[in-house]
């Protein structure tokens, strides 16, 4: 019985992701932030346009490198849908001028480190 419930739940989650259900997308975005931003910003994720096979490979590579993924399938479904190779590639942003004296310092060497 429990197996059936788990199976049905998994199916419902997968269907919700595929149909773009708002709550599921929000949950997927939270999962994405939790799993990815510890090591890098999301720009490098959102600038990709990949097939589901390629996204699966990327997510599994990152799990292998220590990304704290709690819901692998949710993350793969979300990335494959929102950043699919069928969608156009956005123009990347440009950084602001960092050569002026008044620039905000965004130098990682000067940022405080957190010990884990």
């Amino acid at each position: 019985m429990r197996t059936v419930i788990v199976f049905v739940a998994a199916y419902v989650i997968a269907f919700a992701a595929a149909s773009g259900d708002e709550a599921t997308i929000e949950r997927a975005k939270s999962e994405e932030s939790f799993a990815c931003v510890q090591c890098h910003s999301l720009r490098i994720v959102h600038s990709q346009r990949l097939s589901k096979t390629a996204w699966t490979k990327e997510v599994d590579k990152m799990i292998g490198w220590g990304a704290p993924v709690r819901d692998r399938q949710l993350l793969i479904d979300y990335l494959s849908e929102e950043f699919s190779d069928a969608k156009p590639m956005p123009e990347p942003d440009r950084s602001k001028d960092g050569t002026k004296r008044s620039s905000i310092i965004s130098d990682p060497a000067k940022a405080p480190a957190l010990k884990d």
Partner: protein
Amino acid sequence: MTFYTNRRQLMATALSLTGLGSARADDATVIQGKRPMILHNDRPEDLETPVEYYNSWLTPNDVFFVRQHIPRPRVNRDTFALTVNGRVSKELHLGLADLEKLPSYTVPATLECTGNGRGFFRPRVPGIQWMRGAVGNAEWSGPRLSDVLKAAGADLNSPFVEVNGADEGVARTPDFIRSFPMRKALHPATLLALRMNGVSLPDIHGGPMRLIVPGWDGTSWVKWVVRITPSAGPNTGFFMNPGYRFPKYPLPPGTPASPSELEVIEGMPVKSTITYPADEAKLSSAPITIRGFAWAGEEKVERVEVSTDGGARWSDARLTQPSLPFAWRLWSMEWTPPGRGYYTVLSRASDSAGRAQPFVPVWNPSGYLYNAVDRIGVTVEGS
């Protein structure tokens, strides 16, 4: 384990976790020391040079591209020490003052990210979608790697030299280590650069010291070098295998490669880039100078041909600057548009080894070594 973060990023994380923040990073990202750059990633920094900045033989440091795999390490220049160990007669620990005492050499060389142009490959491949700007040309100065090896009494018959950067990775991200055949390590142009275009090597480019491997792909140019180790075999970590490998023979586009079909990348291919006009620019019918640069790994660029009619007819571009191995040459061609309309402009370089740019790039699963004929389109709107 150390995780790099700062308050702004923690806030961004907190906001996105609560659903209040945008999924994109904030739109006011400033990279200290850099003019506005194409922002592929701000943490760690992956910055592409916009083509409009390419108008000099040496690329200024404040627009030079940046590719970081893992967050920048914090290297204290006062306590910095380079270890030379492994197959040596005396292990060395050298500070910056020791390295400054060794004879210094200057090599002009083009540094190109292995994945420059990845964004042009179809089908698309994962990785930073670099277009034309993950390349730059600089004068690099510092001691020869061979002099440092000799100072440690290295066994120069060791087949390989392993070089480790201070960047260690986050979580279980692999350590950044590369290895090279001894013949390239002993090449007189292979340097441990302390200066870039005449100033101390900026932190963001690997300061205080990075490896210069002229003619080889950017991944070989290890930043923040802290250890050099002559060894019996190649390093087998991620950044040597399976990372940064290229098919031994061309594969059908879109197909995976088995590990036995891949090999380590060494010298780079011949390539040219059009830097003016910009792709999809609108022009009047006034005469213009089409310009760009061309480079050829360890070879010299000998010829650049340009077409303004999609490849039906070709003319030789004028090549400027010295013909050197390792460093790019600027090229230019005067053009008076014959009238209104859309023009497809192509550039094609060939080199001292007889290599020429192909019309169709060699597709590969990681999107490396893109070197097809460059192509832009411009619309001439009349005078």
